[in-house]
């Protein structure tokens, strides 16, 4: 018997982001529909719950507000207004952005403008030969997703890049971002821009009016805390490990943490990552040893 409900899957919304300015079709498949993801997770038990971050109430409030606004506007995909996460290094800004992307089910891209090649490419397509199009558009094309979460680091390091970024995040100009090298205008209007800065002064004046400010709190990571679970989730994701992997147990990981109290999420991430790898290694060794023992001393057969 046919499952009738299976026929009626809600369609994933999509949009065509690339429009050619020449006679040819846009390259990189930019002329094809790209998915707009996360619409099924906008409710209170969706992204705001999955992203966790109770230890960063301002961030959580901003995420919840963004989801609420999308629900009210009946836009069934995730998008957060351009935001700057303010806080010193090690407050978990990248972790927050990555958690958000994971909770929304959208790809996450880091645009590090501290890197001169990236910054130059964003500023002008003419300077750089290494990159063909901007990293954001490349990521969109690679993931076939129109509503990426983009973390921008070092926005204040390069004045030309800041001007270009203002064009990218502008609600009108960003809808027609010109990729001159491929003769295509790209709609960046559904991208969620998450900037990072220690203080507002680090953000170029040109960009400030576009950004909502979210003040991140300095957090310390004690072993048995929610932030550690959140970081562990990120570590498992990065190592491509399933949480169901028998080598991954909280007991085994917690045992290998060098300290009970870690000073920042960045340090906690590194420590957790090492602990998980160590636990995996120990698990593999013990399994190998038990296999060897079985081979040397097989059970007597009747």
């Amino acid at each position: 018997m046919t499952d009738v409900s299976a026929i009626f899957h809600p369609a994933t919304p999509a949009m065509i982001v690339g429009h050619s300015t020449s006679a040819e079709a846009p390259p990189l498949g930019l002329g094809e529909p790209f998915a707009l993801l996360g619409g099924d997770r906008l409710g209170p038990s969706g992204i705001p719950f999955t992203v966790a971050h109770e230890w960063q109430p301002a961030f959580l409030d901003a995420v919840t507000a963004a989801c609420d606004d999308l629900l009210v506007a009946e836009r069934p995909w995730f998008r957060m207004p351009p935001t700057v996460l303010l806080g010193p290094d090690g407050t978990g800004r990248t972790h927050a952005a990555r958690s958000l992307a994971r909770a929304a089910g959208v790809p996450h891209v880091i645009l590090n403008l501290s890197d001169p090649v990236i910054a130059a490419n964003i500023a002008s397509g003419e300077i750089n030969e290494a990159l063909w199009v901007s990293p954001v558009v490349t990521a969109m094309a690679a993931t076939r997703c129109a509503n990426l979460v983009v973390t921008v680091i070092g926005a204040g390091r390069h004045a030309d890049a800041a001007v270009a970024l203002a064009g990218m995040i502008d609600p009108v100009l960003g809808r027609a971002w010109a990729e001159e090298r491929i003769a295509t205008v790209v709609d960046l209007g559904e991208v969620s821009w998450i900037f990072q800065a220690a203080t507002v002064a680090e953000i170029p004046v040109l960009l400030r009016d576009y950004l909502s400010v979210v003040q991140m709190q300095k957090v310390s990571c004690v072993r048995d805390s929610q932030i550690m679970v959140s970081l562990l989730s990120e570590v498992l994701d990065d190592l491509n490990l399933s949480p169901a992997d028998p080598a991954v147990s909280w007991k085994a990981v917690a045992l290998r943490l060098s300290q009970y109290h870690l000073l920042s999420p960045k340090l906690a991430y590194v420590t957790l990552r090492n602990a998980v790898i160590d636990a995996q290694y120990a698990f593999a060794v013990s399994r190998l040893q038990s296999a060897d023992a079985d081979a040397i001393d097989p059970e007597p057969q009747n």
Partner: protein
Amino acid sequence: MSLFNRIMVENRDDEPVKQRSPFSMEIDRDYEARACIMLRLPGSNGSPRTIWSRDFYSQAELHDVLAQIKEAGIELGFWGRLVLLLGPSSVDAEIDRIVATHRERVAHQEEEQSRRAAARQRVQSCVSDKNGWYYLTLERETDDEPEWKIGFRGKAERERLRDWFRWQTSRFLEFLDYAANHGAAALEKRLLDEMFAAEQRVKQEGRGAGGTRPLRMWRGE
């Protein structure tokens, strides 16, 4: 903050409404030694879902474990998130550790209690001299102060009683019980009566040492 809360805050210019944790720990109504971590998804009107449960040996053990969790300051959200990420077994392992600590502590307490109870049953006799008084005392091993004492103005009088008393070690506990029931003075009288009776009997048998310490040569037979 939810849209509703934001509207309320904007309109009322009030303090923001604090969000309730979606996780709670509850005791099963049907089985009082079972703890459950419940998840009530935000925005859901449905009943909370049990994401982890555990049966304890007794209700007392359960309450003790809950008290330890509270004392350690472990957030319930931590357990909840851990269950959601790694599954219920991850919390089981943590609870096992707490239960093991609890059982070890209870066993240690019971051992200490029984050791103290046994020590309380052991009574010894001591002598002390203070302000011209010569005392013979009965002390429990667990106590610093004597529970019963008898004082004499002369040392010889104390030693006379002591000659009889030192052969009564198996009855020390009984003496203390007697003193507790009938008073210290009643015990004094009883002991002295028994001593005189023993002296008389020994004298009649011709085994008395004579002098101020007739039972000096007596061996408790």
